């Protein structure tokens, strides 16, 4: 396997694992998270923070995922 592809695979697996871990944590700690969300006020930081964290990790994973399958943006030389 070429080095470039191996790296891409490693990156995808790492982000995939991190993303899965985040979802697992959300599942395990759903009750305290929902309780905090329900309080409102400055607790708004909880859902917003969670959304940012997921977008960062899961966003990277999905991007690498499609690239791994060869679906990447068309690049044109200008």
């Amino acid at each position, binding site marked *: 396997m070429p080095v470039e*592809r191996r790296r891409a*695979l490693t990156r995808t697996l790492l982000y995939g694992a991190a993303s899965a871990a985040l*979802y697992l944590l*959300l599942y395990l700690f*759903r009750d305290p*998270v*929902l309780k905090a*969300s*329900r*309080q*409102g*006020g400055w*607790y*708004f930081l*909880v*859902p*917003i923070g*969670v*959304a*940012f964290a*997921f*977008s960062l990790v*899961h*966003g990277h*994973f*999905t*991007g690498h*995922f*499609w690239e*791994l*399958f*060869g*679906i*990447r*943006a*068309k*690049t044109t030389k200008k």
Partner: protein
Amino acid sequence: MEIGFIELTLVNVIFLFLVGFVGGLVSGFIGSGGAFVLTPAMMSMGVMAVMAVAANMCHKFPKALVGAIKRHRFGQVDLKLGIVMGISAEAGVLYGAGLQQSIRETFGAAGSNLYVSTVFVVVLAIVGTYVLRDAWRMYRSGDPDREKITRLARWVQSVHIPGTMMYFKSIDARISVLFTLPLGFATGMLAATIAVGGFIGVPAMMYVLGVPGLMASATELVIAFIMGMGGSIKFAWSGLVDIRLAMILLAGSLFGIQLGAIGTTYVKPYMVKIVMGVIMILALASRALMIPVYLSDLGRIDPLRDTTARMLGDISFAMLILALTVGAGIVFAALIRGIRAHHAKLAAIDAPVGTFTPPAPAEAVAFPPAGRLKRILLVTDGSEYSESAVGQAIDMARRCDAGLFAFTVLPTPFYASPFGDPLHKEEKRQAVERLMKVRARAHAAGLECEILLGHGEDPWLEIIEQAEQSAMDLIVMGRRDQDDVLRSLLGSTTGKVIGRTRSDVLVVPRGTHCAGKRLVLPVDGSRHSDAAALTALTLVQRCPMPITIVSVAGDNAGLPEARAIAERIRMRMHEAPLPVEIVVRSGIPDRVIIDCARNRQADLIVMGSHGRTGMDRLLMGSVTEKVIGQSQWPVLVVKPGQHALSGKVSAPLSAGQPRSDAARPQIPRTQGAQ
């Protein structure tokens, strides 16, 4: 208010993931969309309306963030314009939400719904129709890459209001923020009203400011991020966000938005407009269906029965899902087509050799004279089916002192998956190896042989183009199998090549070889069979073999005509080195021809082709194709060049006896043998 979070089942999770994916796909492509389905979809699961809106909002801003970053990398985002419009859109959201609230308090839920639906229908009817019309114009313009700036946008760009001017890279001009502010405000207001601000924001950027379609849809993601972020904070402050719902939606939608964003790099700008316009029109039809229900609730029309109202509601929701699905389908199709075309282009660039050596200037004519055999294109796929074709082509090139060119076509991979790319490379290596073996066999027979590897989605098209570009006189190919219904309906590679090429084609079935025992020449009096006769004569002069001319009549009454045709051809073949005999029969042409070849122990059939393709061939049938399908010997299909078709065969059938169709005695046609 009591805040209740619903219990999530596995089915709910999968449903949200899938809807999120489709919504994300569309958003990544057109910058918005999806929300109008997601909110009712969550409500159908039992989520309170306000919490459904909150969860939708809270998944929207991280989704838009990822999409905006992605498309920013493609150079499609005008960040400054997005931020300027996003801020004013936020103000529009607050105002729109307040307006909604006051309408609800004054006219109740039905009044509010009626207001939303009416706005939806009116706005989308105007904007959607305009967007589709513009897409159609671009498509028909002959230059679909070029987007025309509207007169309104040109005027907006020309207005100079001191102290308010701002440069935006997407339009490469300075415009007054006094124009962007109301547009952003309207976007936000519409987002608060019908949940899809992008339906006004993107067209406004395109037609009022003059932003190109792709950049407008990408910049809309920045606006959606700002609006979604503001809305999410507002809902989260009230404790209304069910982060589980939002994150499940996000899980699917981030897969979708990445794909949608990538899709924009493969399509022409009008595709964004088509997707947006189609979704708008379907969505407005969905909302229009609900207007009678709301009017009934308000007592403005006779009350509808419960079943009717429920049915209209179900149809309306189904149409929303249809709108999103159709949009996603168009995006998918455009993405797949774009990727395939791009890979085909890349594969062609990677091809080891561009083209065969061109013919000498004297030979380079678009329509070679019938019977010329100077350049032979051997098409091989390395299978057992093309093995006999290799031997036959080498033998023929040696006998006719012709140039031999071996060609293989590798189908372009559908897309380069982790397994697809190495597989394609391996296929390429094997194909080159096969070509090298063919060349070694040709060298062993004392022949030079050029080799070439072609790439393309349709092998038959590559073969035809290569034969055309390299001015080949003859294409030699194997035959996969006996004809069957499916093959005749779909067409084999060989059939398609025969139908469309202008070169002659020698089809060599597996395990056969023409050793020069006898040549069977079916004739029907047409120019096509004349051309075949000329080629047959050329062949037997190089490789002496007896000829059997076969003429088939539909019934016994046609036998004298059939005999006259055969006699005419025999007279013109007096230069043939070995005897020429005639067989005249009545019956089904292909059966008679095959029987004759079998009985006479022939090992080559030479016949003309009318070159019918498509529906014509399907309806009328092709004797040539039937003979090829049943033949146990090589079949040479002669394609008359332009000269032959116009009745002026470039070389006479017999020296000293120049002829043309005009000079030929008028003989009534018998049942066509070709």
